[in-house]
């Protein structure tokens, strides 16, 4: 019998159908993977199982019984727990307060904090995690946050655990640990659903897979019967080129260098610690590392969103330390920010306007005292064409575009100004495979054109695909540098985990 079964489950948002007649089947005690491209509708489906969204049509059966899940409470009562991709924790609360959120232990009106700490300590020991319940979430590393999220669900004795993109923020070694934990939970009788787009992990840990494409189930297979390539083809509907072609690098002069860059915040924490690297013309320098090790701060400083407390940034022999973003763009540096809807685009403004922003004070669009709307529109039409941006209406807002096309708007805008250096952060996060291919091609063609590219990404395969050289960030500083052609995933994994001497590990292991 299936522990979870859905019949014709459908979810519509106005005219848009996110999930269409889904018939999901999950067996009890298995690890079931749900794969699909970004935007395929995986999270929507899970949110319906967890009560965060209500289905438009269709039915859900848990343990054979028809149920109605109206909110997360209902889901938890049915034994369903969910660990979200973006953690739902309260930063200023402690770990124990977060775990017991919604189910506090009280003595009358007053919360019994001593008892809460005791109960949580026991829970932590039972599952063998190593964390201090009194730590505040805002002070704790991301891997620990994920453990807290899992504990939140285990405390409530869920039988079914849903994990949404759980490995996005983990080093390869931490991924191994997580997969081991998941196996142990399965031995203990739990059913696990993991949503992911990382096909390698699917092969490693799941028993069966459901593939979703454009809101519909394409197939349900046993993991042992398929390869990664098969899954990729099912996900996208065509053969997928998993790697872009790259000619030999023709490295030129040094264009951009960062020396002893440090950022110490108000709480005296060193967010960036003496970062040193240089980028030359004709190469792509990749910055690898698990999210949360200083990459965001590095990018913010280099793109003018944050000030550094120490150090120097040089571009074309000019000192540009702590330059604000308008000056940086004027120097011919293109910026593709990490959070596209926060720093790169304005959803409520038109595509033509978004294509101007950042360069709206140049004379490209008329004078700054009298904008020329014809030039603005022509620019938009040209860029939509050149960069294959799929739009419903050219006059529409950016908010109507899909993630991938919105990202292409940013890329079109920055690249059309012919920059000599492009700083890109997480350039293909949340982007569909077709757009990923396109964006990678663009970046590589820049590099072939004797320009320089600095790419930050927590997606290891992307870094390895694109880069000529790779530096790895760990706890705010650069822990190692490797040649992309010679390195391996394992080597990078060790560096990402802070281990510089592999022999040390091999001797102790």
């Amino acid at each position, binding site marked *: 019998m299936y522990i979870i079964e859905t019949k014709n489950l459908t979810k519509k*948002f106005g005219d848009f159908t996110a999930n269409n007649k889904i018939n999901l089947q999950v067996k009890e005690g298995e690890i079931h993977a749900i794969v699909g491209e970004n935007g395929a509708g995986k999270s929507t489906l899970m949110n319906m199982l967890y009560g965060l969204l209500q289905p438009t049509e269709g039915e859900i059966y848990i343990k054979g019984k028809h149920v109605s899940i109206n909110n997360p409470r209902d889901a938890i009562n049915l034994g369903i727990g969910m660990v979200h991709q973006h953690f739902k924790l309260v930063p200023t609360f402690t770990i124990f307060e977060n775990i017991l959120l919604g189910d506090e232990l009280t003595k009358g009106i007053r919360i019994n904090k001593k008892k809460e700490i005791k109960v949580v300590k026991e829970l932590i020991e039972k599952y063998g995690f190593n964390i201090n319940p009194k730590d505040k979430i805002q002070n704790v590393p991301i891997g620990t946050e994920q453990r807290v999220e899992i504990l939140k669900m285990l405390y409530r004795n869920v039988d079914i655990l849903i994990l949404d993109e759980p490995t996005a923020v983990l080093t390869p070694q931490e991924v191994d640990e997580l997969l081991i934990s998941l196996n142990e939970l399965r031995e203990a009788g739990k059913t696990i659903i993991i949503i992911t787009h990382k096909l390698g992990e699917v092969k490693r840990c799941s028993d069966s897979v459901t593939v979703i494409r454009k809101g519909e189930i394409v197939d349900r297979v046993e993991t042992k019967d398929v390869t990664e390539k098969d899954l990729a083809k099912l996900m996208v509907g065509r053969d997928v080129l998993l790697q872009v072609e790259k000619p030999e690098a023709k490295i030129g002069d040094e264009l951009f260098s960062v020396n002893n860059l440090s950022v110490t915040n108000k709480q005296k924490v060193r967010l960036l610690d003496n970062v040193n690297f240089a980028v030359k013309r004709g190469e792509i320098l990749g910055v690898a590392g698990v999210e949360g090790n200083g990459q965001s701060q590095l990018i913010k400083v280099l793109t003018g*969103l944050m000030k550094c407390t120490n150090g120097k940034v040089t571009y074309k022999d000019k000192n540009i330390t702590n330059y604000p*973003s*308008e000056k940086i763009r004027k120097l011919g540096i293109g*910026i593709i920010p990490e959070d596209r809807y*926060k*720093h790169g685009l*304005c959803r409520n*403004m038109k595509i033509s306007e978004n294509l101007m922003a950042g360069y709206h004070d140049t004379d490209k669009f008329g004078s700054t*005292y009298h904008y020329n709307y014809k030039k603005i529109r022509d620019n938009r039409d040209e860029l939509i064409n050149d960069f294959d941006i799929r739009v419903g209406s050219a006059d529409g807002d950016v908010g109507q575009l899909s993630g991938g096309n919105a990202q292409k708007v940013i890329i079109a805008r920055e690249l059309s100004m012919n920059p000599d250096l492009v700083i890109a952060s997480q350039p293909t996060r949340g982007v569909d495979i077709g757009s990923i291919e396109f964006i990678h091609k663009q970046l590589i063609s820049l590099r072939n054109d004797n320009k320089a590219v600095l790419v930050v990404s927590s997606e290891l395969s992307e870094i390895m695909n694109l880069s000529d050289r790779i530096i790895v960030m760990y706890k705010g500083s650069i822990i190692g540098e490797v040649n992309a052609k010679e390195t391996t995933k394992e080597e990078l994994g060790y560096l990402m985990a802070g281990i510089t001497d592999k022999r040390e590990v091999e001797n102790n292991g």
Partner: protein
Amino acid sequence: MAKINYKQISKKVFYLILPVIFAFLVGAILIVVSGHNPIEAYGAMFRGALVGKSALYNTLFSSTPIIVTGLAIAVAFKANLFNMGVEGQMYLGAFAAAYVGFTLKGLPPVLHVILCILAAVVVGGLFALIPGVLKGRFNVNEMVVTIMLNYVAILLTDYLTNFVFYSGEGYAATYPIEQSAYLPRFMKTSQLNWAFIIALIMACIVYYIFKYTRLGFEIKAIGHNVSFAEATGMNTRNKAIVIMVVSGMLAGIAGAGEVLGVHHRFIAGFSPGYGWDGMTIALLGKNNPIGILIAALFFGILKNGGSTMELMVGVPRSLISIIQGLIIFFLAVDYLNTEFGFMSRLKLMFRRKVRG
């Protein structure tokens, strides 16, 4: 040339008028409660405001100061800067205009008027510089600061009027301004004067700024997404200051209009809340100069007609304030942008209640 989508435009207009209709309905209920006939009351109001040449001119006259305060607020609100201090900036601007008006003597009229207005612009702008800098440099919430400064401005001008520049004529006013500083009236039968023309010119200027200049583009971006604005190089700290100052300058002009065109001196407490009216108008007009003109005209009708309504039917003028508050309430809901539309939202709320 973009196609004009009539269906979309009429939908937008409908949703703009909806708050007004709701407000008038509730107002009607209040009128009934107070023992009067709403149709009679509203009829008297509209007749008093529109029927007859002098009524019409007086309506335009009533709308003059609120066009400018509306513009002042729109410039700030569009950038999500909540300049609640337009009232105070207007008071100080008005006083500055009056001061130049009664201090400088023997000047040719046009020059004198220009100098008075300049004084108002400078003082209004400088006063708004305070909350602007506090926001831009120290991230201090501009709302509370501007409201506090309103009280300061009103009290200060009160003091200056009654103790320093007191005219001695028995009511709280300063010396009258020179004839050369007058903004002339158009006719003897109405107080409508050149301040109205200045207001229209300001509307054109603000329209131009919004549509064709870099500042306008940046105001729009800052209002929609301030992180995006900062990341695309708009230096939001400096812009906060600039925008507040521009807002204050416009408020100053509103004050100058009242002094130079209507009272010809500074009268303590001369504003029955033009700053707050400006807020309603900016909201009704969706921060768009054309919308503001229309909304201001509408309010001119309300104000002008309001006194007629009180005179003829006996419904107190404060009903207009109530209607104003109600309009803002209903305006606060962005009917077009709520998930799947206002009507279907109501249906969903109803369905959920039924399902239980």
